[in-house]
């Protein structure tokens, strides 16, 4: 299997606005890919197309070799696409464990016992054991983000889509988040991480993709991509002559 998740020739427009203009992205098992780009580049739209909450006008999405373009988000989740959202919105009056269990039970398939085991594993992977029985609404920001990850992990994903989860953290907290993501990766879950806070992202991924105006303009080693003149121009505008 060459890739776990791939977007092939994806195009998407909203009315007259072309948001994705022929995007090819291939994520292999065990990869950790970061996606950056200025506002309006199409990153979130791409994520939505990969996750299945948006369908492309052209092109297809492949998961483990299978064409899943026509499948909705719920089905893709069951097939192995997990997603962590930018603003964690846990079920406040349920405990951390119960929140994770929701993900395990509905997304993972299998019986109740299996769901429980998956939930326990997800809680451990994301370093939430000490908080497992606390109500979700009492959690601080970093732990909420971990909970969001655990919920996604509990669905048993092969690839995890992370939607700008790096915001609002101190340096130390960001380091802990990066460590959690690394742990998930070491368990064989591929990571696709959209992020604006570039300096956090480059510590977590070994491949960086930069998008601008609906296209991929750079794809490679993080430090190199961030030095690429095209990338800097995309963010800051072309250097004045």
């Amino acid at each position, binding site marked *: 299997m060459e890739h776990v998740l791939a977007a092939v020739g994806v195009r998407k427009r909203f009315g007259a*606005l072309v948001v994705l203009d022929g995007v090819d992205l291939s994520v292999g098992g065990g990869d950790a890919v970061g996606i950056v780009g*200025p*506002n309006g580049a199409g990153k979130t739209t791409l994520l939505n197309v990969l996750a299945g909450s948006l369908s492309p006008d052209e092109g297809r999405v492949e998961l483990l070799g299978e064409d899943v373009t026509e499948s909705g988000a719920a089905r893709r989740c069951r097939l192995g696409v997990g997603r962590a959202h930018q603003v964690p919105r846990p079920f406040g009056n349920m405990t951390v464990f119960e929140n994770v269990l929701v993900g395990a039970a509905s997304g993972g398939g299998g019986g109740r016992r299996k769901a429980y085991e998956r939930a326990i594993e997800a809680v451990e992977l994301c370093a939430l054991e000490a908080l497992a029985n606390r109500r979700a609404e009492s959690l601080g920001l970093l732990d*909420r983000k971990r909970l969001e990850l655990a919920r996604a992990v509990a669905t048993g994903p092969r690839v995890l889509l992370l939607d700008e989860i790096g*915001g*609002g953290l101190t340096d130390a907290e960001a380091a802990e988040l990066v460590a959690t993501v690394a742990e998930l990766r070491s368990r064989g879950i591929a990571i696709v991480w959209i992020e*604006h806070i570039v300096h956090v992202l480059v510590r977590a991924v070994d491949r960086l993709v930069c998008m601008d105006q609906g296209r991929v303009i750079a794809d490679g080693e993080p430090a190199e991509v*961030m030095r690429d003149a095209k990338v800097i121009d995309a*963010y*800051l505008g072309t250097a004045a002559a």
Partner: protein
Amino acid sequence: MSRPLLTVERLEARHGLLQAVRDVSLEIDDGETLALVGANGAGKTTLLRTIAGAHQPSGGRVVFDGEDVTWAPAYRRARMGIALVPEGRKLFPDLTVEENLRVATAARRPGRWDVDEVLEVFPLLQPLRRRHAASISGGEQQATAIGRALMANPRILLLDEVSLGLAPVVVEGLYRSLAGLSEAGVTIVLVEQDLSRAMAVASRVVCMLEGRLVLEGAAGELTREQVTEAYFGLAAGGAR
């Protein structure tokens, strides 16, 4: 004018659980054009909205023309002369272009700006007066949004990412108009992702990163390298 028109003192603002603005202090003089740059999520929009009264701060002060407006409701600030052109334009979709402009007279401020003046600055809107705001193009909407803010006869104009989603040639036109306004003495604070454009129009630049001001200087004096570093928080070599 010795005292600054707008002073922001140690401002703090949250966005849910996130601290979007951290300990920001800033002074803006009458007639200045200030560019506020930074990556997405850096807190620029929250800062502008807090100044305009659309967002409540969690600490610090906003002082406008000598008066503490930190807790004043947004409509009062508009009537005092603070006008915000919000991110995404936020025109009233069922109102026509002209109605969108005229609504802003709710700010009850006398001044040179009326519908005719606005149409002189943005002649592309002339044939569109009776069109519904939802039916015109992005560039036309942006012009309308700026015009609407001008109709309030503001003393300070806050512009949040006016070039977003617009074709370069349209952005050119908008910035020409902005330069004209700047020359006419309108005080402007401009949030912009395209640094070159911002620096071409502004006299001063500040850069935000994760809620803090990390760089400040005259537009002509800052190098592209300095700004790039501040923008991404990456020192040369990719480490932080």
